[in-house]
């Protein structure tokens, strides 16, 4: 007899239709799959803001010359600083910093305007509350160029030589500028990867265990199905969901966060397909290994956390130690972050992103194979 019948497209369709109907009927899950991207984008897109502005600052004005006033206005106009008060002594400034009432104290020394005009490069001391470097980094980083810009107008005519190479003012803070962090431009596309990872792995992670716990597995196993039909059938409907999420995220990031789209949308959608498939494969494989839904959830988080931490979403990828980078290369999110940022922000083409697409495809293939092998054909 033909004991081993081949893969049947018809049974695959049966699974897909069934899964799709069930998904449609599970209103809560369905709403969550569509709601999660929006809520997370709004929450994290706005909340994770590594370019905080309107930071409270105090100023110690020991000089009241015209150039000192220019500097002050420039600082205010940059929107990084809000001058909440003027202090009379350095001590007073320190106290404010210590109590957290201001983030910065800016010292404009005596004879600042005079020294500046003489070309003595007077020093401006900026004291910063650096407990959260991420909060102050951008504001500090902007300082030097801010001063240069501000003084350009003052240093016209005979003073023009001062606007030259070294800069007219000596700013006593070292720039912490990290050119990779363009804040929301960076975070919002990253969120696309994170949201897809979370929802796709979680939703399929429960797929098989749910059948087992509801007792429907006994019925499914009593039919002549092949593991690949069941697993792929459970994945396909969620590819669509993934695309809906991608669409929502792209719309929100375009209209709310004004993230540019330098590269090709088609390329992005193609890459997203591979990424979504990789995550769904991972989820379904987790669910073939897990004994129950709780275990499946635990395994999902076990994968999700390192994905977020090691992918370059949380910390700059190049800042991590080598072993961590090496580990990070395994996770689909790492590659997708490069792809999505590359396409959106740098206008990368196929040649650039294919470097990160094939690891995704390889990941999906390996993981799905493990899932098919691990799929238990009996109730034992």
């Amino acid at each position, binding site marked *: 007899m*033909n*004991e081993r019948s081949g893969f049947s497209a018809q*049974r695959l369709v049966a699974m897909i239709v069934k899964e799709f109907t069930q998904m449609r*009927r599970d209103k809560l899950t369905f709403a969550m799959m569509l709601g999660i991207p929006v809520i997370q984008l709004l929450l994290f897109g706005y909340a994770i803001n590594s370019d905080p502005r309107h930071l409270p600052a105090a100023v110690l004005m020991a000089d009241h010359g015209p150039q000192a006033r220019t500097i002050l206005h420039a600082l205010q106009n940059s929107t990084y600083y809000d001058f909440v008060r003027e202090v009379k002594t350095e001590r007073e400034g320190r106290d404010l910093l210590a109590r957290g009432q201001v983030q910065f104290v800016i010292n404009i020394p005596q004879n600042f305007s005079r020294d500046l005009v003489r070309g003595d490069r007077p020093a401006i001391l900026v004291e910063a509350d650096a407990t959260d470097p991420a909060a102050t980094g951008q504001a500090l980083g902007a300082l030097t160029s801010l001063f240069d810009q501000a003084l350009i107008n003052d240093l016209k005519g005979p003073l023009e030589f001062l606007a030259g190479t070294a800069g007219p003012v000596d700013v006593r803070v070292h720039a912490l500028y990290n050119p990779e962090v363009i804040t929301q431009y960076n975070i919002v596309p990253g969120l696309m990867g994170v949201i897809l990872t979370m929802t796709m792995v979680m939703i399929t992670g429960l797929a098989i265990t749910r059948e087992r716990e509801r007792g429907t597995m*006994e019925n499914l196993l*009593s039919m*002549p199905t092949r593991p690949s039909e069941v697993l792929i059938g459970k994945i396909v409907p969620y590819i669509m969901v993934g695309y809906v999420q991608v669409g929502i995220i792209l719309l929100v990031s375009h209209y709310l966060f004004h993230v540019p789209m330098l590269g090709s949308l088609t390329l992005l959608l193609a890459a997203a397909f591979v990424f979504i498939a990789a995550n769904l494969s991972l989820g379904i494989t987790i669910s073939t290994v897990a004994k129950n839904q709780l275990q499946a959830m635990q395994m999902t988080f076990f994968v999700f956390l390192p994905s977020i931490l090691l992918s370059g979403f949380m910390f700059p990828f190049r800042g991590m130690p080598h072993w961590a980078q090496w580990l990070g290369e395994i996770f689909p999110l790492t590659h997708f972050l490069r792809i999505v940022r590359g396409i959106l922000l740098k206008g990368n083409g196929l040649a650039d992103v294919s470097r990160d697409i094939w690891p995704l495809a390889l990941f999906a293939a390996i993981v799905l194979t493990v899932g098919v092998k691990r799929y238990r054909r*009996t109730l034992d």
Partner: protein
Amino acid sequence: MSEELAIDVRGMTKRFGDRTVVNDIALQVRVGEIYGFLGPNGSGKTTFIRMLCGLLRADGGSGTCLGHDVIRESESIKRNVGYMTQRFSFYEDLSIAENLDFVARMYGIPGRREAVNASIERLGLSGRQKQLAGELSGGWKQRLALAACLIHQPKLLLLDEPTAGVDPKARRDFWEQIHELAAEGLTFLITTHYMDEAERCHRLAYIAYGNLLTHGTVREVIDHVGLATWSVSGPDLASLARQLRGKAGVRQAVAFGNMLHVSGDDPEALERAIAPFREGREWTKIRSGLEDVFIHLMDRSKDNFDA
């Protein structure tokens, strides 16, 4: 009914850990036969059926099911077997029609839509096919499950307590349908706890604690156990039962309405035991019923296995 065997297995064994749940069971079921599979809760009926259709890996045993090797060819067996699980195992979040449609697609049935519609028609659910399976009452779920098992026209049906929780009228309809299908050549292996259903089977097997204790027609099973039974009516049967139980020769004293059935496996010992209680009551020697026999078998096997 032919002499051809739909199920022919021997030595079927299943262990969970170090517990043997099905112990060396042999079973022959002829094509077109309705075979009853009985035994107390936890005796291994469901486990045995699951091994037959490849849902559990047997730890021992060999044989054929519909001519296919029961151990190695479970895929072919699955294609020709309809298995109705003890617990409802269709999708509660799919409608009646969607469940049937899913099954029909899975088996690749030609003329799927017609087959599904015909099945709904036969079920008498024409107006309600859009209703979710989870919203059906217990009895209707059973009927849906049976309809779904039949949709791919299997040759053998393994029905695990198909009538649990079904009302008497529906139960009668169900058994009429079973007999009609059997006449057309379908084979049934049915587990049940109802004696009237057991008596409607062509043959039956009784297992307890994983062991096959007896099998054959109803008459053969009763004769094989060789139980003598007296029926008694009269005053104060409850205290009579108390007094009789434990007496030598009396295996059981069970109330049936306003009668008491007193049984024992040695007719003479039994007569000696009841002699002191004859006065003032009406005693008749009766044929042991299946229920007397099964309760007796259950008690006896408990003695054997507890020892």
